[in-house]
């Protein structure tokens, strides 16, 4: 990666240097050989002919049925693996994938079955929270777009906002001496918080807190102040989701595309809330589109949030995503009330259960990411970031933005994975996706990604994934007399050690 340490990196691969993501590496060739070897082994030792599924085939593993289900499964896990591969190549790690799968499934299930169809009858809590989110997000967008004067306006305005928030609380309470004291303390602490942050850190930090105070004030006025209003809640849902889209777009520096993203999200949500009734058996297309878009946006935002934690608080990636590994699953449990939510609508479920939709979807994602990592400036910069972060920063690469992109991609794909797994099983449970991050990371590592970053490729990850899934499936079909679920882990462990071990030796030699 020494080429990337030059003061101003050229916008393309430097002359004479290998293109890390686009060249067939030795490790990928090795993986391909390993896959062929494992297939040969399965062919040699698999017992019994298969006369019923497909008379032409002689072994159950190679029956059309098994190959199809295996490819389907690879596509489902593949979406997660290629996402985490981008983060690993960029020198990070994302442990929150399994929890993100559960959260995305639960959120899309709730959106389809109750939130989107029920927003017209929103109670005070739902109205208040949606308005609070809308106002806070709009203010944050203003901070990103308008900067200084906007920040000062937010901070100064936080005084009346805090008074309003405390006042609404007081008005809704018993109005005794105690609640006056609580309201006064509340207002003072809110104001003190904003100005304290402003003094302690910078205008921006104070303004972000001020935006939340504004949101709290508006939320309490609109929600707990009015006793709930479906129309306000509907508008606030559209505004807050498009504002979230815009904010994520701005953070990722999409420029004009950020506005397009916001408009698209808003359009999807408007379609969703205007689609009328929905039951678990039959969900209108508009609600499906809105629910899927919002869940994907949530994944994108949580991914960008990981990068924020890593950039702003200097948390190690392991810690930041370990925190969300626990936190997101807990959130999924709260939102689902710790029970499974069934959605049997065939249109939605086809996304995850029909192999002819899931597999092309995965291939499209993998090819896009492979092109991004292998042929674009962004991809080269991600390799440079993973290879040597200090060198990348000193040579003028926007390392903060690059991290945000990497984690956002991983979050987005984990959310997509959640929707696909949910579609496949037809029920969203908060325990879904338990330890899936480990299978995703294993595929990336077996595929040649180095946990220290800067090495690996999407193509290698896909090959690693294929190898692992063949080994797991093959063990189940070939081993007789012992329960495959008991031996599967052992076989997988041996394959990981062999694959990574050979890879390391090969790399050291060269």
């Amino acid at each position, binding site marked *: 990666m020494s080429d990337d340490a030059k003061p101003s990196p050229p916008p393309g691969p430097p002359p004479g240097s290998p293109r890390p993501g686009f060249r067939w590496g030795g490790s990928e060739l090795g993986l391909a050989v390993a896959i062929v070897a494992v297939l040969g082994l399965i062919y040699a030792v698999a017992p019994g002919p*298969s*006369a*019923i*599924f497909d008379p032409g085939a002689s072994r*159950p*593993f190679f*029956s059309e*049925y098994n190959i199809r*289900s295996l490819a389907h*499964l690879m596509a489902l896990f593949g979406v997660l693996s290629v996402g985490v591969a981008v983060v690993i190549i960029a020198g990070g790690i994302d442990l929150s994938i399994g929890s993100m799968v559960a959260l995305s499934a639960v959120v899309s299930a709730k959106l389809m079955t109750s939130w989107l169809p029920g927003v017209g009858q*929103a*109670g*005070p*809590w*739902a109205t*208040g*929270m949606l308005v609070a989110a809308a106002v806070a997000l709009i203010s944050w967008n203003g901070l990103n777009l308008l900067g200084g004067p906007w920040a000062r306006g937010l901070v100064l305005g936080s005084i009346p906002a805090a008074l309003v*928030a*405390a006042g*609404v*609380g007081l008005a*809704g*309470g018993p109005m005794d001496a105690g*609640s006056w004291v*609580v*309201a006064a303390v*509340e207002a003072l*602490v*809110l104001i003190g*918080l904003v100005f*304290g*942050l402003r003094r*302690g*850190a910078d205008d921006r*930090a104070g303004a972000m*807190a001020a935006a*939340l105070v504004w949101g*709290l004030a508006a939320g*309490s006025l609109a929600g*707990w102040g009015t006793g*709930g209003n479906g129309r306000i809640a509907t508008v606030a849902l559209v505004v807050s989701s498009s504002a979230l889209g815009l904010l994520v777009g701005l953070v990722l520096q999409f420029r004009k595309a950020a506005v397009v993203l916001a408009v698209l999200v808003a359009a999807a949500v408007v379609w969703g809330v205007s689609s009328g009734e929905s039951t678990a058996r039959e969900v209108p297309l508009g609600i499906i589109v809105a629910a899927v878009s919002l869940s994907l946006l949530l994944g994108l935002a949580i991914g960008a949030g990981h990068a924020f934690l890593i950039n702003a*608080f200097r948390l190690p990636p392991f810690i930041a995503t370990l925190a969300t590994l626990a936190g997101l699953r807990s959130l999924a*449990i709260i939102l689902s*009330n710790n*029970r*499974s939510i*069934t959605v*049997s609508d065939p249109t939605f479920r086809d996304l995850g259960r029909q192999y002819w939709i899931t597999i092309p979807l995965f291939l499209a994602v993998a090819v896009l990411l492979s092109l991004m990592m292998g042929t674009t400036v962004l991809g080269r910069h991600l390799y440079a970031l993973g290879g040597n972060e200090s060198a990348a920063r000193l040579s003028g690469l926007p390392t903060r933005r690059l991290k945000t992109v990497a984690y956002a991609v991983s979050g987005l794909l984990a959310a997509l994975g959640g929707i696909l797994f949910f579609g*496949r*099983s*037809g*029920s969203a*449970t908060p*325990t*879904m996706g*338990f330890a899936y991050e480990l299978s995703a990371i294993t595929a990336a590592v077996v595929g040649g990604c180095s946990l220290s970053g800067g090495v690996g490729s999407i193509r290698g990850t896909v090959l690693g994934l294929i190898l692992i899934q063949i080994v797991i499936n093959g063990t*189940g079909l070939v081993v007789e007399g012992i*329960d*495959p*679920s008991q031996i599967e882990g052992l076989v997988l462990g041996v394959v990981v050690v062999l694959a990574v071990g050979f890879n390391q030796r090969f790399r050291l030699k060269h």
Partner: protein
Amino acid sequence: MIGIRRRCFAWAAFAALGAIGMGCGGSNTGGGGVGDTQPPGPGGPKLVFVSNSNSDWWSAVEKGMQDGGEEFGAEVTLRRNDEQAQGQINILREILSMPDVQGVAISVIEADSPGVIDAMKELQQAGKVVITIDSDVSPDSADARRAYIGTNNFDAGRVAGKAIALLRPEGGKTALFVGTASAANARAREEGFFLGAGDAFQKTQTWEDGTDHAKARQNVQAALSKTPDLDALVGLWSYNATAIAEEVANSPQVRDRVTVVTFDLDEAARPHLAEGNIDASVCQNPYEMGRLGVQLLTALIAGDEQTVAEILPDGEIRETGVRVIIPSADSPAAALRESGQEVLTIDEMNSWLESKGLQSS
């Protein structure tokens, strides 16, 4: 560093404030909020039910508890466990520190888990009434609870075995699917199944999925690939039914030659029974378990010996029985009625579920 520390503090303070503000703002309606089961009203003893998992099945128990709470005047709460023994121990320890809880009903996740049994005994020492529902402790530890309300899983398995023998008199190769094969109910159902089915059925393998629904589906695919001439598929846990039904529905040539028997009836499995992708399902009565559990606990707390004796004819164990659900009245499994077994068609079952406001059983 100071900036960051201050910022962290500030965020924490902010979060706390938000909570205060909301509490102060008069959350008397609580419209869009989330929470556990709402107690039906003040008064009456406070009862806590502890589940073993968070499966759909427990929603039916919860509905029975709520109806029972209203009927017998008790405040009921269902605590859903995370499928780990440790989770149950934590919940029981928490209940130990709640002086107002007078009765506890638990579905023990492992029949002989010493930690869970110790916690149950501590609850009894603290003066709370402890019973087991759905899944009992092992007979050696029977003193850890006052009574058990639930299904006799061995009998349920035997009914499933008899049903498959009627559906497929010629027998054949059988694969079983379950979350945890070592669980007491799984073992009892499997044992009962092969006893009821007879020697014509040979077990190929029990496939475990560790309650991962994606893996459950994958196991069905693997079983069909591994044993192409498989004749019978048996789903021992409720979600296995959906996994099997969806897989066989995908390949008509498989559907035509296999027999599918499952346990319980998840919301997602109901249409599969109606479409004939499941040949028979042996259903427990979770609604009744919840309702009877509340009745028994209130009677035990109030010292109402007569009601206790009515619920527990033999003093300790009450079986809630099973029902066999079939796609239509002309199913060969309808012959089970002759031996006194309750058999319902899916349409009859659907109307019963609707009458109770249930989605699953």
